[in-house]
């Protein structure tokens, strides 16, 4: 019984490696502390943990840009294929920093929500919310850092178990129904993913992505395994035909939670699909499948946007907008194929896709927080009842508008730069139909953004009934996120070198910053 794996895992733990472990460990330690220190210090512990997490994310970024190569950590000192490795390349570091910023902002937004009072006896909602927020932060860091497919399975389970209870945090019957639907569909997805992991192991004897890249052969076993894993993850990313759980779940969740769900959680499983298709599947086998993924993405943009325009409630409109914007991400697959000269990760569609992911994360988080504020101020979020609301809470609707600007892809927003790069890529690659889809999406996005802004900014016919005051801090958090969505628009319009770090040469094994030895 010889092992087919001639090549041992090439890399050793790089100096900054322990930071990767901390990025995953710190949120878990935070959870344990929340449940032992009692309700008096729940928020304090949670917010300090998020702060430390953000510091760690920045430390990893500086470490990565410093050494110019991937940060790697062999957990337990065991070298894959036997042990587990954590690997942070340029792309995952960008996403970790993005997660830290968005969750940090949501943390500041949610401070004092859910009736949290340090002196009163422990209440359900705040304790559970902060625990699950830390859980999501840790799980997403694990997704972006994990280099082992089964490790990623445990990570996406962690994400599901933290996201589902957030959906039905308010305990109402229909949010619980939405949560059950989300849980069951996510479980269907993860069990199919697990089946794919089993088949990959049966074919190659390892589950480490870096090793699989060098060993993966063009054969039916690999295709069926990748198909199972991809579709399983599509169910969790809620790409169009498999989006059945997202609208009710994201609209039912509390504002802070739906901001994190829409902005980050669906991106986690997308990131794994990205690694499967660009890091494991040999390039020549991706042609037709990539067109199919982008086709589903195009349908998502069309259906998601049109239905978003027809929605009566603000949060449902934003949820369907998420369904549409996820479609854009999948346009990366056919466009970021790269050529002999430039590897996939150096193509402009790769940078455009990640820019779209980041700007959507900021814009969508800002819009959901704004929707939460609208609910606080008026007691409902029926769009028809929001005539003249812009005058009562102007900052909220400015945040909503700036977020909408980024979704529509108007300069100088991040959405515009992403759209510009994707359009350039689709014209450059000669696949002009994706350009038509992107432009259509922009028009439709204008449809549902103006549908909310126009009545809100216009002079109301009847005085709008205000339920309660809205805290200025929360409005400023939403505005800050929306402004972040604009600021990343100033990234230079060319393939970002940061995203290429650690991806090494395409040929042979992925060795940080150089050819295989």
């Amino acid at each position, binding site marked *: 019984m010889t092992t087919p794996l001639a090549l041992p895992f090439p890399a050793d733990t790089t100096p900054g490696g322990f930071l990767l472990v901390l990025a995953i460990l710190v949120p878990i330690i935070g959870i344990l502390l929340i449940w032992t220190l009692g309700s008096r210090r729940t928020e304090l512990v949670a917010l300090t943990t998020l702060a430390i997490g953000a510091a760690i994310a920045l430390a990893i970024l500086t470490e990565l840009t410093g050494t110019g190569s991937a940060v790697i950590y062999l957990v337990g000192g065991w070298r894959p294929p036997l042990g587990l490795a954590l690997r942070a390349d340029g792309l995952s570091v960008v996403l970790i920093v993005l997660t830290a910023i968005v969750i940090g902002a949501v943390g500041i937004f949610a401070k004092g929500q859910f009736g949290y009072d340090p002196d009163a006896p422990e209440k359900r909602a705040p304790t559970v919310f902060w625990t699950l927020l830390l859980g999501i932060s840790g799980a997403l860091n694990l997704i972006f850092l994990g280099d082992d497919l089964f490790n990623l399975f445990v990570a996406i389970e962690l994400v599901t178990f933290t996201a589902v209870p957030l959906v039905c945090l308010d305990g109402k019957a229909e949010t619980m129904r939405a949560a059950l639907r989300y849980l069951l569909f996510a479980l269907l997805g993860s069990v199919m993913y697990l089946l794919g992991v089993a088949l990959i192991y049966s074919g190659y004897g390892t589950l480490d992505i870096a090793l699989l890249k060098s060993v993966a052969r063009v054969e039916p076993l690999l*295709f069926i395994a990748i*198909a199972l894993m991809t579709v399983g993850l599509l169910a969790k990313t809620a790409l169009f035909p498999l989006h059945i759980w997202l609208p009710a779940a994201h609209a039912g969740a509390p504002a802070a939670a739906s901001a994190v769900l829409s902005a980050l959680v669906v991106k986690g499983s997308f990131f794994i699909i990205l690694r499967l298709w660009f890091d494991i*599947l040999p390039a020549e086998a991706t042609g037709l499948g990539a067109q199919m993924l982008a086709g589903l993405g195009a349908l998502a943009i069309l259906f998601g946007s049109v239905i978003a325009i027809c929605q009566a409630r603000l949060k449902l409109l934003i949820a369907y907008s998420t369904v549409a914007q996820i479609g854009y991400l999948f346009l990366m697959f056919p466009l970021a194929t790269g050529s002999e000269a430039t590897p996939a990760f150096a193509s402009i569609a790769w940078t455009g896709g990640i820019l779209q992911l980041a700007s959507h994360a900021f814009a969508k988080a800002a819009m959901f927080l704004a929707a939460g504020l609208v609910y606080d101020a008026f007691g409902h979020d029926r769009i028809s009842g929001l005539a003249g609301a812009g005058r009562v809470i102007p900052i909220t609707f400015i945040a909503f508008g700036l977020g909408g600007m980024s979704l*529509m892809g108007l*300069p100088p927003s991040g959405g515009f730069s992403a*759209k510009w790069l994707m359009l350039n890529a689709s*014209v450059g690659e000669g696949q002009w139909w994706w350009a038509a889809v992107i432009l259509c999406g*922009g028009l439709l996005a204008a449809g549902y953004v103006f549908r909310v802004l126009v009545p809100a900014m216009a002079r109301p016919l009847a005085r709008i009934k205000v339920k309660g005051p809205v805290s200025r801090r929360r409005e400023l958090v939403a505005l800050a996120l929306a402004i972040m969505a604009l600021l990343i628009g100033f*990234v230079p319009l060319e393939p970002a070198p940061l995203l290429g770090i650690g991806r090494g040469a395409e040929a042979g094994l992925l060795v940080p910053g150089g050819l295989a030895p």
Partner: protein
Amino acid sequence: MSGSLLSGDATNGAGLLLALALLFPLVLAVGLSFPAARARIGTLLAIAPLPALAVALLGNGARFVMPGPFRLTLALDASGAMLMGAAALLWTAAALYAPAYWQGGSMLRRAGLWWLFTLAGSLGVFVADDVVSFYLLFSLVSLAAYGLVVLEGNSSVRRAGAIYVGFAVLGEAFLLIAFVLLANASPGGSLAIADVVQGLPFSPWRDWTLLFLILGFGTKMAQVPLHLWMPLSYRATPIPAVAALSGAAVKAGVIGLARFLPFDSGSVPWGELLTVIGMISAFYGVLVGLTQTNPKAILAYSSISQMGVIAAVLGMGLAAGRASAPAEATFYAVHHLFAKGGLFLAIGVVAATGRWRIWPVFIPAAFVALGIAGLPLTGGALAKLAVKDALGYGLVGTLGKLSAIASTVLMIRFLTVLRGTARTDAGEALAPLTLRLVWWGVAALAVLAPWILLTPATGYPLSDAVSPSTLFDGIWPLAIGGLLAIGGRRLLPNPPRIPPGDILALLRPVGRLAGAASVAIERTEARLREWPIAGAIFLGLVLAFSIAMYLAGSS
């Protein structure tokens, strides 16, 4: 796509001033949030365009490159300076006009923010020097103007606003894809407009680029199939705002065509297409304009017609590869800017004056209106002269003459309707002095400014303007137009009434179709969201993807 994005030297002194001049309105907009500034909003709006006017007059050859990742490059060339100066003048006039027209400050305060953003956009779009900055400033002027269109806030105005936004975003989508095609074909990936246009003739997508450019800027210039928004939104916008919009904002389309079309290498088919569109719009505007009763609508259709003439000039220039066409078209646009802006201001003034006191206000309106049709010795005549060579002497030249005649008829129609709007209740009432002063100022600019700008802009000596041949060329179309107008009024006393946004009625079935489509989409999506169907799709996708990869892999 690497290397420094922008060719050309870095910022020079005047360039810095130019950037600050454009930044000034935005700074004032931020200032509006302080109550002290809001109190004196009238003066703020008035001084906002002045720095830009100063730079336009003095800072020729200014060049500004924003350091760091913020891609913003500005460059002041001759036509840019001319248009920016004229626009700044018109915005100042409108800003002086507004407080008197709106008496109370509440409307002014509500318009303040949108006014300053549109102003910044409309001035900046003339000097943007790279594709992304141009697109940024173009969308700023298009979308911020929406705020001015829906100032009055009643339901019909909101419908007009919705249509305006629809067309604005559609136009921007065309422009975005056009700029992407341009950027892809530009040598060395540089985004400067000069390099981009240089690369256009050799680009593999040349035809697509030109089509989208014409569609994008055609929407902004309200050329025929895409003109629906102009009559509706100009009727809805209050006078001071519509004067600025019709004068300055629309010219963004003109400067766009002037900068982005490859005049030196030229392209016959696209040039002819643009001329045809221009001519159709010119005559269509007049025909429908004649049926209108509201003076603002008539002027809107007159704008469509005049923009059609400019499009024809640029089209002929493109077809003949005539490098001077953009300068001539810009000169024509400057005159139109003053004339059209002035006439809108005139409507406000006449509406406030009594029947018996109308003449001191009405006479200049007549001069400016007929000037548009080419009345000799007025700015209009010079404008017609400037574009006469570009239009050439063949069929298009004669069509040019016919359009002058048509404009005369339309202008006479406008003047008669304008006289009717004078106040009958207080015959002796006089409009507030500031209104009249601003109106006279702009009228003077409309008549005299072209005289000053003719030689620097187009190189024709002033003597041509006064030569007997041009005088005669100016007179006979007016005479025939006058006869037609008088005869027309007797022959069909009440012409058919067409609602503004004429073929909008055709759009109604399209609207219904879109409604039905969205209902169908919603129903299918609701079915798709049922669990068994989603589950079946899940399994189907697993099979589909594995087969797809198998086929891709084995081929």
